[in-house]
């Protein structure tokens, strides 16, 4: 337990980390790096919100792009059709995500097995087709072009940072409470969880709603930042839904820091591979996925944490004084 260190040391680290994050775009004025940092934060948000549901509650979703796209379209349409300001629109985007999550969870969480995963996939494809064909409302394949809101990347960066921080804090808060224990129990064994008085359907629904809320907010953010959306982009299975799983799994499912590491790896490596391997970069990417899964099945954080500091471990750490005596 050498790595446990003193409390003060850890607080120092935290302050340093916050300072680095807040100061990054001021110190690093290169917009290209700022752009990558923004996407890193966006993927932290997406990976973390997927992880709350998939990693902690064990409910794997193959179609989180449904929420992402829902959020993107909600705020963009509110702006394009009604002139509703897009940044508050992000919140409404998140709410739209919850409204979508409610019936989905109600239908799917009664069933066990891969039904939820598959239904989410169907839902995201269904929404893609609806937005594509409901041309009067959504402009269909033409997509929605928004005016860019800021010239500088600073506001974009800080909004992304706030979103990522909010998602992580929400996850941390939930996971560190009774809800977190319940979600893990559901992941580990649903029958046992029920027998122990856990309303599994309800707690799964809670996790889904929180996850959908942040995923949809991230979708709204993407729309505001990129200033253009169309159905194949925001409802993409490979580029959104699968990529969210990748971030969580590469980093370590069911760990708070896993999605952070996963997002960092994905954003930097895919950018580096794109530059170095040219046409072969997606092969290298595929090989990387295979290698990590075969050799680090618990993800990067999960595998390192088995040997590392206790607070990184992929489960609820009970850090109370008694715990380290055993």
């Amino acid at each position: 337990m050498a790595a446990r260190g003193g409390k003060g040391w850890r607080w120092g680290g935290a302050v340093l980390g916050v300072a680095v994050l807040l100061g990054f775009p001021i110190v690093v004025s290169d917009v290209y790096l700022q752009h990558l940092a923004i996407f890193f934060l966006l993927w932290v948000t997406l990976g973390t919100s997927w992880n709350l549901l998939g990693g902690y509650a064990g409910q794997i979703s193959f179609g989180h792009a449904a929420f992402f796209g829902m959020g993107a379209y909600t705020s963009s349409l509110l702006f394009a059709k009604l002139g509703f300001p897009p940044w508050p629109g992000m919140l409404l985007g998140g709410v739209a995500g919850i409204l979508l999550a409610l019936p989905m969870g109600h239908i799917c969480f009664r069933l066990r097995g891969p039904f939820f995963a598959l239904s989410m996939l169907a839902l995201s494809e269904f929404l893609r087709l609806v937005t594509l064909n409901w041309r009067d409302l959504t402009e269909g394949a033409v997509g929605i072009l928004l005016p860019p809101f800021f010239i500088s990347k600073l506001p974009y960066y800080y909004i992304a940072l706030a979103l990522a921080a909010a998602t992580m804090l929400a996850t941390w808060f939930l996971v560190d409470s009774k809800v977190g224990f319940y979600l893990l129990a559901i992941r580990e064994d649903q029958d046992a969880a029920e027998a122990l008085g856990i309303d599994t359907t309800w707690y799964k629904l809670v996790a889904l709603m929180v996850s959908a809320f942040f995923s949809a907010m991230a979708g709204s953010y993407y729309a505001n930042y990129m200033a253009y959306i169309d159905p194949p982009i925001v409802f993409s299975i490979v580029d959104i839904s699968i990529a969210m799983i990748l971030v969580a799994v590469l980093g370590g499912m069911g760990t708070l820091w896993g999605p952070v590491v996963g997002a960092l790896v994905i954003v930097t490596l895919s950018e580096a591979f794109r530059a170095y391997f040219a046409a072969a970069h997606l092969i290298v990417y595929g090989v990387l996925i295979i290698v990590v899964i075969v050799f680090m099945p618990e993800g990067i954080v999960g595998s390192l944490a088995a040997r590392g500091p206790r607070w990184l471990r992929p489960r609820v750490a009970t850090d109370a004084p008694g715990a380290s005596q055993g």
Partner: protein
Amino acid sequence: MAEGQRKGHMDLTILLQTVLAGVLVGGLYGLIGMGMAINFGVLRIINLAQGELLMVGMYVCYWVFTLWGLDPLLSPVVTIPFLFVLGVVIHRFLLTPLIRARALPENQILLTVGVGLVLTNAALLAFTSNYRTITTSYSASLITLGSIAVSLPAVLAFGIAMLVSSALWLFLMKTDLGKCIRATAQDPDAALLMGVNVERISVITFGIGAALEGAAGSLLVLVYYLFPALGGIFTLKAFIVVVLGGLGSTLGALLGGIVLGLAESLGAVFVSTGYKDAIGFIVFVLMLIFRPAGLVGKARM
């Protein structure tokens, strides 16, 4: 009056032709779905590289036709063993270690995503992104029945798909290996106790699942075209087919394929072509809600 009658006749022709089109395409969907179904039945994972395996099958078929003139209808003799070996290699060297390590099912699924990425992009490097088609002597031939016309390749593809499905069914029902596969699908622990080498069965099953895509690839080439990125579309179709058929049921997958084909073609005619695929998904979700065990109930394999 005559006008009305003619219109009525036309409507009937359209209906018949639509149903026929749906069934013919559905047969292919079914065959593609069967590969995924048999894998799901035994391994309990969804192979998201199933469409990419189909793509590989199509390229193999394309090259043996282009280089040696082997007719696509005969090419399954090459594509089936080729894909079988590819499937066995993927399972033996990538999935088996995961299963031994008792990895989470989602890791196994993601692994197949990685495999799919590698296959697609390897094909892109090797064959470029060009679209390719095969033209045979019978490519443009038609069979006409009264006012209904169907393309000969589509009928041939359907016929062979049925043949391969029946062969698979006989294999599962009548041979010892087939029985072992069914036993493993029903209860791996019990199968293990009964002396079945479950690991070996898994590898073989994955090979068979891949081989089915080889066969499907040979047939799809007859009516479609090929390019490296086509896997994703068909992985998705296979997915729906497998759920419609009841997860893991091969006969169900065949039926599911035909239901999907019909839903798509009838939907295109009577609702809107744009919503054609959406109808497939609605059927899919309705199935999940009302008959989660699939069309044919609980029967496995």
